[in-house]
């Protein structure tokens, strides 16, 4: 009466080994085929991105609450940020997203040198972003806009010419959130640069082929997410009440 299930139980008791998939060295033993492995990896990556969104979500939530509560201070703080550097960085990141797309395409068609080139360019763009960010942080240090004992904020909120003084404590809160969010974002950029640097080396060594380039695709997804987070951070932090 259990015929159906008996068929599934093999007579052999030999333990399976990983050597039955000679055709694709990248295929791990516990997957049935390359397609299953690729699907698993990309689903895993998407889920990881979901956790990243929830992670930043907590900070976006704090941002929203305090922006509503202390709008004037947030506007005054925002007006002290360097909009040109912010815009430059936005452009840099958008371009880097394009090079990531091109890298994935190059991997798909198996152009190794092109792939390595795009990966290197992406890393360079990422580093450019970090350097620009570094200059911005430096400026904040010089202006005593870094939260802490040396924090000093005397600037006012310029509301269409009307100067509104703000509570420095609230402005400090703006800068706390600014540093928390951009710092966490920069950390993700540093990880991204390391990731793409590693991929460039591995690509150069020929680890990837048109049949197996999942890591490049997944790293690309990560890079895009980090970009998108910046696309939100830029207007939320830099462009409060800048309509003049």
């Amino acid at each position, binding site marked *: 009466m*259990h015929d159906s299930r008996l068929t599934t139980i*093999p007579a052999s*008791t030999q333990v399976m080994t990983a050597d039955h998939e000679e055709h694709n060295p990248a295929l791990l033993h516990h997957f049935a085929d390359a397609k299953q492995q690729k699907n*698993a990896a990309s689903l895993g990556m998407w*889920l990881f991105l979901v956790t990243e969104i*929830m992670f*930043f979500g*907590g*900070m976006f*939530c704090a941002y929203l609450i305090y922006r509503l509560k202390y709008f004037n201070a947030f506007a005054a703080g925002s007006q002290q940020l360097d909009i040109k550097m912010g815009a430059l960085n936005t452009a840099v990141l958008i371009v880097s997203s394009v090079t990531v797309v091109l890298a994935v395409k190059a991997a798909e068609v198996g152009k190794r040198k092109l792939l390595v080139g795009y990966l290197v360019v992406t890393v360079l763009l990422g580093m450019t972003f970090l350097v620009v960010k570094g200059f911005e942080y430096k400026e904040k240090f010089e202006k005593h806009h870094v939260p802490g004992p040396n924090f000093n904020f005397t600037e006012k909120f310029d509301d269409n010419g009307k100067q509104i003084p703000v509570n420095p404590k609230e402005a400090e809160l703006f800068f706390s959130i600014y540093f928390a969010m951009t710092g966490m974002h920069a950390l993700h950029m540093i990880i991204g640069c390391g990731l793409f640097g590693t991929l460039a080396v591995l690509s150069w060594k020929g680890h990837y082929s048109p049949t197996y380039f999942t890591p490049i695709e997944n790293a690309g997804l990560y890079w895009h997410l980090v970009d998108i987070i910046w696309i939100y951070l830029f207007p939320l932090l830099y462009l409060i009440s800048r309509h003049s």
Partner: protein
Amino acid sequence: MATRTATIVPVKQTPKLNYLNNGHGLKSWLLTTDHKRIALLYLVSVSIFFFLGGVFAMLIRLELLTPQGDLLSADSYNKAFTQHGMIMVFFFLIPVVPAILGNFLVPLMIGAKDLAFPRINLLSWYLYITAGIIFLHCMINGGVDTGWTFYSPFSTEYTNTNIVEAGVAVFIAGFSSIFTGLNFIVTVHRMRAPGMTWDRLPLFIWANYATSLIMILGTPVIAITIVLVAVERLFHLGIFDPHLGGDPLLFQHLFWFYSHPAVYIMILPSMGVISELIACFSRKRPFGYTFVAISSMAIAVFGFLVWAHHMFVAGISLYAAMIFSFLSFSVGVPSAVKVFNWTATLYKGSITYATPMLYAFGFIGLFTIGGLTGLMLATIGIDVHVTDTYFVVAHFHYVMVGGVLMGYLGGLHFWWPKITGRMYPEGWAKLSALFVFVGFNLTFFPQFILGYVGMPRRYWQYPPEFQVLNVLSTAGASVLAVGYLLPMIYLLWSLRYGPIAGPNPWNAAGLEWQTASPPPTFNFDETPVVTWEAYNYDELPELPVEPVEVPVAR
């Protein structure tokens, strides 16, 4: 006996190589990517933390024997309940069922050779251990005294204990659970054996799937919250402390946004275990399979909408409180559905009372009480009086200990023969199940009364009229402790002296019972093809009244 042998004929011989003896030495364990070995690594490490958490629980109960604080100083007592809470929540309850039983069973139950990302699985364990070591270091260096809830501004500005280190530990432990959840979801989606459709998934898998969703959606929020607490503490940024311009309620919102769903991270997998146990020992497909599966998902979803019911008197608005009260009742419905379906499964079954089933009965009873008192707490007019009292303590111990732990112990006994290839001693197991049930009720039922008469929680000393109830509770805790120590002893004993179990000592349905015990390294010698429905107990032979040793040549 004749029908019995029919099922086990094909795997009559225990394979010479199984996951336990396929590789020896410390390295083969510490660098393993085999989900079953990782499950055992968790079993050992989680048990150690459970023991530690239990020691702190005993310290608390001993201190509360007398109204005046005489055994511990006030600070030591505060640290004791904080370490007890943090260890039990972050290092025991959250990983216990998913990381031990889930890790072991998810691939086996769906017919996969391993989890989708075996190396990430190992990484999860290392993260857990790293977190554990950091936490132990923090504990040895004085510990933390904020309560496991880390409420700001106490945690950020006022306590002088090492919050940052404890925070780092919780943060890392959080990522361990995120990766476990991610691994489970991908595995369930992508690694199912041919024919293992969604409506054939065991309910344990559904429960773990729902749990994993909460893990990946909720845990990052507690992670960032803890980062913000640490940053506020280190650099005095005013995010939560009102003296620095922050809002302490924001902390509570963010904290409970994770920590309420975390309650379902703990209880859902145990509910999954109970579904398996009741099906097996009633020899029946669970009544309303679909509804039990959907209720797991419903609990996961609704669980995210009720967090502010921890904050009814914290200073949220009247209307917010009413909305969250209403939503909290909605999460009661899927929980009730599960209890009713389990009960209905017994109807016209063929029931035996092996130890796992005793734990299942215990679970139903204690979870019913825990759930109903939860409804009382959701009733805002009552919550004002009983929140932050022992009523709440009793309620969540009924759910966490009466629920999670009963489910875990039931599951551990049920799958012990699969994990080790040996049966546990039935008599001792029944005795300890009895100890657990009696001891548990004696410990925590008096606390409901204590709470309603007004004893606040986290009290080092208390008015003398509360003493009798506290003594009862401490007496119960001692019985409970015996109930927990016994399995630690006889399960270890059974590793060497337990009867050989054979592949399917319970004649249970489910793919995990179709491979050898202990299973070979890649679980199945050939990928199984599923052609039958889940819980096809009508096709399986009866269970003997007492499980007997299966005669298998070694």
